[in-house]
């Protein structure tokens, strides 16, 4: 049995299955992070004693650059596949992994520094929001790394058997990755700069 439209787009919708699937998934992610942003705004505007901590803007800026770069490498990986250049693809996806890893390492140092200054989720609701949002975002980064790891490892076999479908998978994984980047683009000013 074969599920139709795994590779080629369905003529009337112009989409292959996973492409529609990932966008639906991202729609739900919008609502997930939307709820957190909503809570953040509501708590902050509703509380006259709101206390905004100074966070490490330098580290966060570096992290922003890491994520933006990783977004580029992941599209490059996809382009390499479309040019049939599997070696380049691997290179770019490894680069993406490395940047994601670097992001998490920086995050680790940020968290440790905050703990050292006795800033915990229990300190105040700003810190609680900060840890919850960046934590959830971090889990998404980790999830992305797992997916990339799979696509570089056991999942890469598919390149031999179904190259179209594999290319689609990379595109879809990339869409997810850009979304994670996009969330960060909003997290960064809301938590670090405002």
């Amino acid at each position: 049995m074969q599920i139709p439209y795994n590779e080629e787009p369905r003529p009337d919708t112009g989409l292959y299955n996973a492409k529609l699937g990932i966008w639906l998934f991202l729609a739900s992610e919008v609502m997930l992070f939307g709820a957190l942003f909503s809570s953040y705004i509501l708590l902050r505007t509703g509380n006259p004693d709101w206390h905004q901590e100074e966070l490490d803007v330098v580290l966060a800026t570096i992290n922003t650059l890491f994520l933006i770069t990783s977004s580029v490498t992941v599209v490059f990986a996809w382009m390499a596949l479309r040019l049939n250049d599997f070696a380049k693809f691997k290179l770019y996806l490894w680069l993406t992994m490395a940047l994601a890893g670097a992001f998490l390492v920086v995050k680790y140092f940020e968290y440790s520094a905050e703990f050292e200054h006795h800033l915990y989720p229990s300190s105040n609701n700003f810190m609680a929001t900060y840890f919850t949002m960046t934590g959830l975002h971090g889990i998404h980064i980790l999830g992305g790394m797992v997916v990339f790891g799979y696509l570089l490892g056991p999942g890469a076999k598919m390149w031999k058997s179904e190259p179209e479908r594999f290319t689609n998978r990379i595109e879809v994984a990339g869409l997810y990755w850009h979304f994670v980047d996009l969330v960060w683009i909003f997290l960064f000013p809301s938590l670090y700069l405002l």
Partner: protein
Amino acid sequence: MAGHSPEEISAERRVYVTVFASLGVLTLVTVAVASLDLSTGAAIFVALAIASVKGSLVACYFMHLIGERKLIYAVLALTFFFFLVLIFLPLAAQADRMGG
């Protein structure tokens, strides 16, 4: 879907590189603006405006939303509407309460 011919792809690459550069610049701009000591309202506005521009760049070019299918637009429009509801209705409810 985007084409497969090498020419098209290298054109695409140029787009990506340009977008990447703009994102980098905009990131630095946000940080710079944040150190300017604007009033809270202005600071929030500027920061979110820049973030929105950056977000749109990522969505439009990296996620190739520009030139995506109608169906995807429909899904995202619906989601965006509910997103606004989720952000603003609770705020409105918090603002309009018994006893002010």
